[in-house]
């Protein structure tokens, strides 16, 4: 995190350049200002001459803080490395989840390079990437500097955990900005990152309108209290361990908003929590629901799940056909799912028989 | 004990030597010849490991080619000039290996095996260091143990391929003297190849010389050394 220190100094230096009296003759910024309600991972700070986008760690995570300065007029000079006079018009993304936000504003054409194109499964977004000639810029998990330089992006949107890669990008003159929407603890907070992208694409009204609409629908569907008779366990093992989300993760929040009760409710952490398989096997006989997000064949069935390990037949959720499954291979869970929390909530409600007459998009009951 | 008939031995089609007729019996026999003359090939062909020869070798009237390798292990023992033991073996462990041909596939040592080992250790004067580590012995002691191992194998014929090559002068003469006594006392045929001709007159019952593509038995009424020197034109 050392590397952010100079950045912070740059930013403060920008702000300090402004005359003190600027507050007095405040000129309203040309765009409508966005208000952040749920998200804790970013801020949008408006001043007379700049809009500053700040992304930061949420309590409990490794500390980081990153800023991007968007200058309204070119008469003010700012020496900060990461400042823009014009909005960045060519992007690279380290995560395909960013595509959901970008696609919302019909700006996929700006994405010149992406990490892991092969993992974007066939569909509208994939088609557009192909048409636009988006380049692969990573090998495995490593950013390939040469590929990035070839696409010459105005801005590279990165994960906050790849510090050394960020350093080498910046030393090659590529501006980066950290996007950590997945650290949010509320599904609506993750959706709210749409507003950050809205500033970049100058489409604040569209973002606001959509956000308000989804927020309203989501909140109207939210069940008041998680029901402790509807306990759920989560996911599948990795080797001999189960990595399950911490109790304050956004996916757990979504399931709680659907009225389910997390089996590992008291295990609060920052990201995943590890459980030895024996523990989960034992708990599986008691949990009413089993929520799985996994990469499986199209027609994955309850029988196939039980074939993976016969112990699953002893799970209560399997016996009662209450396995709620999202196929990350065939659904857009990691793409459009990010901006459709209300639909995911509805899916869960439908699977748990709270609503009828609905066609689920992401989650279904395993048959 | 060993009979050779119409032998013609060659390596890669290159003739090493011919041997029309030879009959050898008990005693200490030296095999002499220049490097590459075919001493090792000769020993290896008696061990049934080298078959590029015409003619027939008989061991106690049985053609060698008809004897299987496991049978042969009970009839011929061998000592090479150097051994590289893998593992932390004691002298006794090494001697025990001489009993291998007589053991079943689980190689359990019998009382009889132990008796033979004790007798040989006594004969060769190595019973005081039976429990010493083989790797800690001097070169002379090591070779003595390997000869002991050959005796433990309890065969009438023992072949030695330059057994004294890595020994100093004193150890060489000690070893040859011991071998000549053992051959005489125990009615064995010990055939050894060597470059060390000084000791032959004193200890050997007979000497085989390979020279000019011929293997001949030297006359025992003349000095072996002189015959060899004249054959090699050394004066």
């Amino acid at each position, binding site marked *: 995190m050392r590397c952010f220190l100079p950045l912070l100094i740059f930013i403060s230096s920008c702000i300090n350049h402004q005359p003190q009296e600027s507050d007095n003759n405040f000129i309203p910024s040309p765009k409508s200002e966005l208000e952040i309600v749920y998200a804790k991972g970013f801020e949008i700070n408006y001043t007379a001459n700049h809009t500053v986008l700040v992304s930061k760690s949420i309590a409990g995570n490794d500390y980081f803080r990153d800023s991007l300065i968007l200058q309204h007029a070119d008469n003010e000079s700012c020496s900060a490395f990461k400042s823009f006079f014009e909005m960045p018009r060519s992007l690279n993304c380290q995560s395909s989840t960013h595509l959901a936000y970008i696609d919302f504003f019909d700006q996929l054409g700006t994405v010149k390079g992406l990490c892991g194109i*092969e*993992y974007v499964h066939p569909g509208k977004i994939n088609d557009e990437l192909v048409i636009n000639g988006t380049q692969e810029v990573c*090998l*495995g998990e490593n950013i390939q500097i040469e590929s990035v330089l070839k696409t010459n992006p105005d801005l590279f949107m990165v994960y906050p955990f790849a510090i050394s890669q960020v350093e080498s990008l910046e030393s090659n003159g590529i501006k980066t900005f950290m996007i950590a929407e997945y650290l949010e603890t509320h599904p609506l907070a993750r959706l709210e990152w749409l507003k950050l992208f809205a500033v970049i694409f100058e489409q604040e009204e569209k973002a606001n309108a959509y956000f308000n609409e989804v927020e309203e629908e989501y909140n109207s569907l939210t069940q008041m209290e998680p029901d402790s008779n509807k306990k759920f366990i989560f996911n599948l093992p*990795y*080797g*001999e*361990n189960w990595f399950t989300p911490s109790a304050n993760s956004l996916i757990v929040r979504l399931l709680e908003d659907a009225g389910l009760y997390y089996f590992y409710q008291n295990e609060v952490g920052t990201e995943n929590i*590890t459980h*030895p*398989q*024996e*523990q989960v*096997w*034992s708990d*599986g*006989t008691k949990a009413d629901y089993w929520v799985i997000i996994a*990469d499986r064949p199209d027609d994955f069935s309850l029988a196939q799940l039980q074939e993976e390990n*016969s*112990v699953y037949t*002893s*799970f209560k959720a399997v016996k009662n056909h209450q396995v709620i499954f999202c196929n990350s291979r065939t659904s857009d869970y990691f793409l459009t799912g990010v901006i459709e929390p209300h639909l995911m909530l509805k899916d869960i409600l439908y699977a748990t028989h709270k609503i009828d007459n609905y066609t689920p998009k992401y989650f279904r009951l395993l048959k | 004990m060993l009979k050779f008939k119409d032998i013609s031995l060659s390596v890669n089609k290159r003739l090493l030597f011919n041997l029309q007729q030879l009959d050898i019996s008990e005693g200490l026999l030296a095999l002499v010849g220049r490097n590459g003359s075919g001493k090792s090939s000769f020993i290896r062909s008696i*061990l049934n*490991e080298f078959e590029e020869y015409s003619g027939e070798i008989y061991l106690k009237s049985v053609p060698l080619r008809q004897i299987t*390798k*496991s*049978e*042969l*292990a*009970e009839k*011929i*023992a*061998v000592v*090479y000039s150097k*051994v*590289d*033991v*893998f*593992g*932390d*073996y004691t002298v006794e*462990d*090494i001697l*025990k*290996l*001489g009993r*291998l*041909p007589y*053991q*079943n*596939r*689980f*190689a*359990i*040592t019998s009382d009889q095996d132990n008796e033979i080992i004790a007798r040989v250790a006594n004969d060769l004067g190595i019973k005081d260091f039976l429990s010493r*580590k083989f*790797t800690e012995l001097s070169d002379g002691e090591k070779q003595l143990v390997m000869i002991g191992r050959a005796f433990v*194998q309890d065969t009438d014929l023992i072949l030695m391929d330059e057994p004294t090559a890595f020994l100093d002068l004193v150890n060489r003469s000690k070893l040859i003297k011991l071998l000549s006594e053992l051959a005489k006392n125990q009615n064995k045929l010990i055939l050894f190849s060597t470059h060390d001709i000084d000791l032959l007159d004193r200890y050997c019952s007979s000497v085989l010389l390979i020279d000019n593509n011929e293997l001949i038995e030297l006359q025992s009424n003349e000095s072996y050394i002189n015959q060899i020197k004249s054959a090699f034109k050394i004066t």
Partner: protein
Amino acid sequence: MNKDIIVLIGLVLVVFVLALLNLTTGVVKIPFSDIFDVLTGGSVENESWSYIIENRFNRSIVGIVAGGGLAVAGLLLQVFFRNPLAGPGVLGVTSGASLGVALIILGGITLEGIAGGLGLFTAGVIGAFLVLLLLLFISRYVKNQITLLVVGLMLGYFVSALLNVLFLFADQSETREYVIWGLGSFSGLKNLEMIGFVLVVGISSFGAVLMAKGLNGLALGQEYAKSLGINIRTLRVGVIVVTSVIAAIVTVFCGPISFIGIAVPQLIRLISTSKNHAFLIPLCFVGGSVLGISSDLLVRLSANSLPLNTVTAMIGAPIIIWTIIKLNKSFAKI
């Protein structure tokens, strides 16, 4: 030799105690009476417990047998190549088996059930076999023992390089499956697989005991062994078949497990008085079992946070270094 029998009985007891510990400890506390009920075919209140106990039981057996098999394979390779640092891992035999497995997993060949196990096993055996043939070929021309080790290590690197190439073409779930397998684990074998596993390793190890006489003779080198009536050709085939079958089946079912194969034979040679492989092989097997089952116990005591390969390395590497120092005198030139 009497001392060796005491050591053997002692090690068997240690294996038994460790196996009992492995059965009775775990994150889920199960009363001993229930464990006994399940093992004797009864039923228990919590249905998952029978699965948990079955899993603990199977992985204990697999750990015991895999550890034993690897140690026997290591001993055979050390004697055959006359190299105290040889072992299925160092010589690249495990890498060969891994490559076979990787070609199947990453090549996207999906085989279900028993056919899957057999397919992987066959691929593993072929891989291990080819590496051994290559080593034999090289050892015929290069007598230096260090060279052989370096060749083995290079084969390992070469295989992992090939694997990296395969990774590029594999999809995420195949890669994940391969990575999990690479961490090593004695867990996950179903009853039928376990029985097959025990039979294959057991028969191979017994086959090794049948070669005891030849292995004894090899202590003096191949020339002397031949003069003792040992058929080197048969012995060579035997050693290759036994070590590649053991290394392959363990690698296929448990992952590429390192260190047990080298460390155990070295230790056993130090503590045993007999030089007869008819004793040394069973001793090595049981010694390997102790290391196998204790590694699994450690994996489970760490709540699975330490992968098997990490544990065997943590136990095995110090043993190897210690024995190298101790053996340095007797193996002055390797």
